[in-house]
Structures are given as structure tokens and as C-alpha cells.
């Protein structure tokens, strides 16, 4: 139970670094394989490709991990400061991550990379919103309309009619009694 209810925040950073590294490793391997194959000498294509993948894809993975870890750290900081979790957090932290990782290239590059980061994160959030909002109805257009909910019981009994009098019952039996029918 403790495991289930604990705060995700500081632990999430490690998860994100790991998953980003894995993503960069796989993607970088595929990407570098093409380049290595193209640039290798004739007759050594396979060897050149493998060497390129071995040497470069880990670097791509590390770069991805740096991005993911920075992003998650800033996201957690924002959650702690704002005490609220919403898409704005991730957009802002995407921009800040882009800026901070490009800090050695000067303000112009920082601004460009910040805009790029926030736009990418905004697009990811937007796609997430769209999938949660419209996917259900797109997958099954014949599904019935959402069922109506009753008022929660914790609010107690209250209706628009005069309190204590119910029109459906004779003699104005108070509604507080249990409904036996």
C-alpha cells in the first residue's frame, strides 16, 4: 500500500532517465546504422556499420538521457512549486530544458532550443489530449451515450422541490424516510 500511494516525483526522474536512454540507444542504433553503411568502404560495409553503431549510438542514448533527466527534474520542481499538475508544467519544463542544455552556445541558440523544446512538448501534450478525448468515440461510433450519474451520497438529500415534501408520495411523507419501493 505504501508503494502504491507514495509520491511519484523524485523517483520519476530515474525512470525517465532510463527510458530516455533506452529510447536514444534504439533510435540511435537504427539511425547510425544507415550512416555507417553508407560511409563504410566497399567490402567492409557490415563491419563499418557495426562499428559506427557501437561507437555512436551510446552517445545518442546519453544525450537523450540528459534531456529526459533534465526535463523530469524541472517538471518535478515545477510540481513542487506550483502544487498543481497540468500540461503547462511539462510545456514550461520542455522549454527550460532546451534552454539549459544549450546554455554554452549563447542566448540566441538557447532561445531557439527553448522554443523548439516547448513546441515539441506542447505537441506531445496535445496529441495526448486528443487521444484521450476523441479516440473512444472514433473507435466505436455505436457506443451508447455516457450514462447519467447520481448525485454523490455524501452531499445528503436535497432536491429542487420544497424540502420535506415529495410530490410523488401522498400526504407529504418526508423524503428522509427510506424508500421501500
Amino acid at each position, binding site marked *: 500500500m505504501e508503494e502504491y500511494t507514495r509520491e511519484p516525483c523524485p523517483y520519476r526522474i530515474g525512470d525517465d532517465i532510463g527510458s530516455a536512454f533506452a529510447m536514444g540507444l534504439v533510435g540511435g542504433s537504427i539511425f547510425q546504422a544507415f550512416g555507417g553503411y553508407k560511409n563504410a568502404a566497399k567490402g567492409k560495409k557490415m563491419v563499418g556499420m557495426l562499428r559506427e553503431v557501437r561507437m555512436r549510438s551510446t552517445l545518442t542514448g546519453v544525450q537523450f538521457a540528459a534531456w529526459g533527466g533534465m526535463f523530469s527534474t524541472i517538471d518535478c520542481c515545477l510540481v513542487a512549486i506550483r502544487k*498543481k*499538475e497540468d*500540461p503547462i*508544467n511539462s510545456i514550461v519544463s520542455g522549454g527550460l530544458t532546451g534552454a539549459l542544455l544549450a546554455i554554452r552556445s549563447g542566448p540566441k541558440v538557447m532561445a531557439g532550443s527553448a522554443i523548439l523544446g516547448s513546441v515539441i512538448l506542447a505537441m506531445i501534450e496535445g496529441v495526448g489530449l486528443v487521444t484521450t478525448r476523441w479516440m473512444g468515440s472514433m473507435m466505436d461510433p455505436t457506443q451508447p*451515450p455516457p450514462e*447519467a*450519474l447520481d448525485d454523490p451520497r*455524501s*452531499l445528503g438529500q*436535497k432536491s429542487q422541490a420544497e424540502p420535506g415534501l415529495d410530490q410523488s408520495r401522498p400526504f407529504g411523507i418526508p423524503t428522509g424516510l427510506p424508500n421501500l419501493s
Partner: protein
Amino acid sequence: MSPLSKLLLQNSCRNVVKSYFLTPSQFRCFSRTLAALETPKKPESSQKQEHALQRSILEDVLLTEKPKPTTFGGKVAEKASNTFMYTAVVVGVGLIGAFVYVLAGEFFAQDSPQTIFNKALSLVREDGRCQDMFGPSIAGFGEETARGRRRHVAHHKYEKDGMQRIRVLFHVKGDRDEGIAQAEMEQRDGDWQWRFLYVETKRRPKTTHVLIDNR
């Protein structure tokens, strides 16, 4: 170009070579020019090399110019391909713009779960009784995913008695306790209004505090 001819081209000390006897100022100038010619410009050249090495693929693509077509057919083909590219870019930008517009409209709409969550959370934070129950600073978040994100606010949109309603559920947490807040809004005369908003502690015995009840 030999150093001497370079020297001849220098503007500042033009009469250096012509005169046989050098005045001290001319001599100084002469030696300075020679020194400038002799010292190889190491830092600049190495910088240039670095730039050449660091040049990215994007720069290569942007800076290399294609040879212009000379034949009529080639010109027509180039124009056609340019037109096609421009249309593709315009269509793409338009699509992204429309997507962003629709998304922003959904996000900032009066009945979007995010908006209701924001309003309800600020109401809960300002409420004195809620501050007593949960602590002075109250955090609000939605349902947690497997990756530790808690951004998705649970909501249910339905119709009852001919009225559009949306119910939103989110979690609140303070220093003392944590709980669940439920809010419902109803569309009355085209305007979305609160139907109820209450918070309930998660721990038993559950304490309920109703902030708004407009049923």
C-alpha cells in the same frame, strides 16, 4: 602572392619601398608589416578548420546552391517543384495552425475538465475549512499513470433532465491529510455554472466539507 607584392599593396606605408632611406617611423612601419606578414595566422586558420568540421548537415543543405537549369524544360520543372514545395509548406502550417486552434479552444473552454479543475482547486485553496482539514498549502492533481504522471483529471460528461453536465474528480493533498474533491458543472441557459463542489478525506472516518451546493 609574394610578401613583397603584398607589401606594395598596403595602403598605410605606400612609400616604404620607393624611398631608399627609411625614416625611423617608416622603418617601424616596415618592420611591423613584415612581422605581420611573417607570423602565420594560426588561431584563425584553426578556427576555420573547426568550423568546417562542425558544419552540420542542415548548414550544408542550406548553403549549397543548386546549378540553375538552362533549358526551358528544366526551368519549368524547377518552377513546378518549387510551387509544389511551397504549397506543401503552406498546407502543413495551416494544418498545424488549425490543430493548435482546435486544441486551445478545447483546453480553455468553459466546460473543459482542465478549466474546472483549475477553478475548483483555487476555490478549495481559498477555503478556510479546507485549509483546516488538509493544511495551509493544498496540492491538486489528477489520476496517476504508470509513468508517474498525474496530469489526467478524471471527468465524465453526461446529460440529465435535458441539461449538459460534467463531473470532475481530482485529488487534493496537504501537509495534514489527503482527500478527493468532486465538482460538477451544469449548462444553464448556455452558461456553465457550479452544481456542487465538495471535498472528502480519503482516510476513514471520512470527513466531508461541501463548498458549493446549487442543486
